[in-house]
């Protein structure tokens, strides 16, 4: 199989025993497996061919924020910045917050190390998520975020994984473990950005204790050529609430698995996502919600706009186990194709083994509506601006419902610019096409 692990083993550093054990276990699984092919059901529409190339270890970069082109939302709390997977203290800001502990695995104290080793990997069933095993095998460091019981974080925590430009194509490994203790409250934004020639293999684990509330966003703002295989794995104990928002702007190969496990009665999950593709981009979201216990609810909404020759894949599985009575789960996926060569494969999958449940799902694929376009033009609005308004309008509701004001303020102009630029406009004209959004 393509050698994705050995370049990363060059980074050999001293790691604690518990981490070493996890590395070896990951490596054993990885070495004994082969990359999925398109004959594997879960990978039917996504080819791993772009990974068939030589990768090097992630280079250390000391480029400044400006040189890196970092453009981050101002969220006011702690910000941890990693460039090519390497910690950049100079670009990071740590503000103290009595509700939070944020620490890298390598800096963790004994108590923290014990918590990390207790929870790390517990959200990920190894056999099913091969790339998570690769992540384990290559693990040298990661971020541990603990939200203390019965307390509320003052500001969102921001984690930035940026890849810089490099001569060689390289792999960067990203790992985050969040432990939201019982009745804690916090917000968290994961931000991925940067270069053309990096492959990011990321795993984020969220462990929510009883009554914990976590607002999580994961933004993929990488370049059109970026490669990313990522997983978000969450466990929700009783009465926990997870709000998780996802945004993906293109990429040559982007595959994100989102797995939410309702493990305690009364847990609630709101999962929202937007994917926007153009050129030859490929984005694949596979979501899986496991309702293992009664009285849990899920509201899942994903919307995608696919243009040019891009291809999107959405697979939304909701699995309601025999004991999960009184489940309420709703899944909606709507897609807008803006070109005749754009494609989407969408498949909602409901598997219901309990009888007293309320479930709905739906998926649609549509072209831009000619009648809407015409209506706007009869009012004097140019075709280009009408396209921008309609595209933005298609995803608008998902942005507006995000709880963090500061994130909305960051996303709105970013998305408006994206649609302006998609309409093929130069910067100045782009501003003209987007000026009425949010009027």
């Amino acid at each position: 199989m393509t050698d994705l692990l050995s370049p990363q083993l060059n980074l050999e550093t001293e790691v604690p025993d518990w981490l070493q054990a996890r590395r070896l276990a990951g490596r054993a699984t990885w070495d004994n497996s082969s990359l999925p092919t398109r004959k594997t059901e879960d990978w039917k529409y996504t080819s791993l061919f772009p990974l068939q190339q030589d990768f090097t270890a992630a280079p250390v970069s000391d480029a400044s924020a400006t040189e890196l082109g970092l453009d981050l939302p101002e969220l006011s709390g702690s910000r941890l910045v990693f460039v090519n997977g390497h910690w950049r203290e100079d670009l990071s800001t740590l503000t103290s917050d009595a509700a939070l502990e944020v620490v890298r695995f390598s800096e963790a104290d004994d108590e923290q190390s014990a918590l990390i080793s207790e929870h790390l990997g517990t959200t990920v069933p190894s056999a099913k998520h091969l790339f998570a095993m690769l992540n384990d095998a290559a693990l040298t460091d990661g971020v541990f975020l603990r939200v203390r019981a019965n307390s509320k974080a003052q500001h969102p925590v921001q984690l930035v994984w940026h890849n810089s430009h490099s001569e060689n194509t390289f792999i960067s490994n990203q790992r985050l473990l969040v432990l939201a203790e019982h009745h804690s409250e916090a917000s968290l934004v994961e931000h991925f950005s940067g270069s053309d020639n990096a492959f990011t293999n990321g795993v984020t684990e969220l462990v929510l204790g009883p009554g914990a509330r976590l607002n999580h966003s994961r933004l993929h703002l990488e370049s059109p050529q970026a490669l990313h295989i990522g997983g978000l794995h969450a466990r929700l104990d009783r009465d926990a609430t997870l709000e998780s928002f996802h945004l993906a702007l293109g990429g040559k190969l982007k595959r994100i698995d989102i797995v939410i496990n309702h493990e305690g009665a009364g847990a609630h999950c709101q999962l929202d996502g937007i994917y926007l593709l153009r050129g030859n981009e490929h984005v694949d979201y596979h979501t899986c919600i496991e309702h293992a216990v009664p009285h849990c609810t899920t509201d899942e909404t994903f919307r995608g706009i696919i243009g040019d020759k891009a291809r999107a894949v959405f697979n939304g599985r909701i699995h309601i186990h025999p004991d999960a009575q009184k489940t309420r789960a709703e899944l909606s996926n709507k897609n807008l194709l803006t070109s005749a060569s754009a494609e989407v494969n969408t498949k909602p999958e409901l598997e219901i083994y309990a009888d007293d449940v309320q479930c709905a799902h739906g998926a649609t694929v549509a072209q831009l509506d000619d009648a809407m376009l015409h209506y706007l033009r009869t009012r004097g609005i140019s075709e280009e601006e009408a396209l921008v308004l309609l595209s933005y309008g298609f995803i608008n509701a998902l942005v507006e419902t995000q709880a963090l004001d500061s994130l909305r303020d960051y996303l709105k102009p970013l998305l408006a610019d994206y649609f302006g630029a998609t309409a093929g406009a130069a910067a100045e004209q782009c501003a003209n096409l987007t000026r009425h959004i949010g009027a």
Partner: protein
Amino acid sequence: MLSIKDLHAEVDGKTILKGLSLEINAGEVHAIMGPNGSGKSTLGHVLSGRPGYEITGGSVEFMGKDIFEMETEERAHLGLFLAFQYPVEIPGVSNMEFLKAAVDAVRESRDEEAFDTVSFMRKAREACTAVDLDQAFLKRGVNEGFSGGEKKRNELMQMMLLEPKLCILDETDSGLDIDALQVVANGVNTMRAEDRAFLLVTHYQRLLDYIKPDFVHVLADGRIVKSGDKTLALELEEKGYGWLEDEVA
């Protein structure tokens, strides 16, 4: 202002307009009546440049220019306005965004300065009041979930803000209760001006009790088969359209 000569048009290979001619001058109010399916809405769609309508003969000049040489938005810039019989719902685009985009585009085409946000908001609120719509409608998606009557008022509000030269109202009165009908009539009557013309497409004579037309035309089978003054509308109300079809045959 508008000069339609021997217009032929088809949809999906079916000929709908079969030699329609009509002259409208600035300051005039024309009413077009006619049975269902006679081509009234088709005329509005053709004039607005809606895709799918093919012009197979004749000519239309608007403000001295060949209308078919212009894009839909260019026609609007020149002052053409169509109040749709069935306004389109556009979820996700707020009415406010839409109105500001439309007014800015039209003013820009006339080299007029754009309204700043505050004065535009004020104008939009005034327009809301004028058509008796709650201001909450400005924040909602364009026509999204509006009732039939609310959609018609929204059309009227756009007309007021865009200040067009030629206003075509396609059955804006249909389905309205008497109060709403009066709102529409007041809107039109206040906008009547020497340099503005109206084409009221209506199924019922009652609108013409409130808006006095200068001319009434009957459209049947894709052509104007009879024109007259407002007494024609009363005659139609009394006798129906049958006698005209006999006359034409």
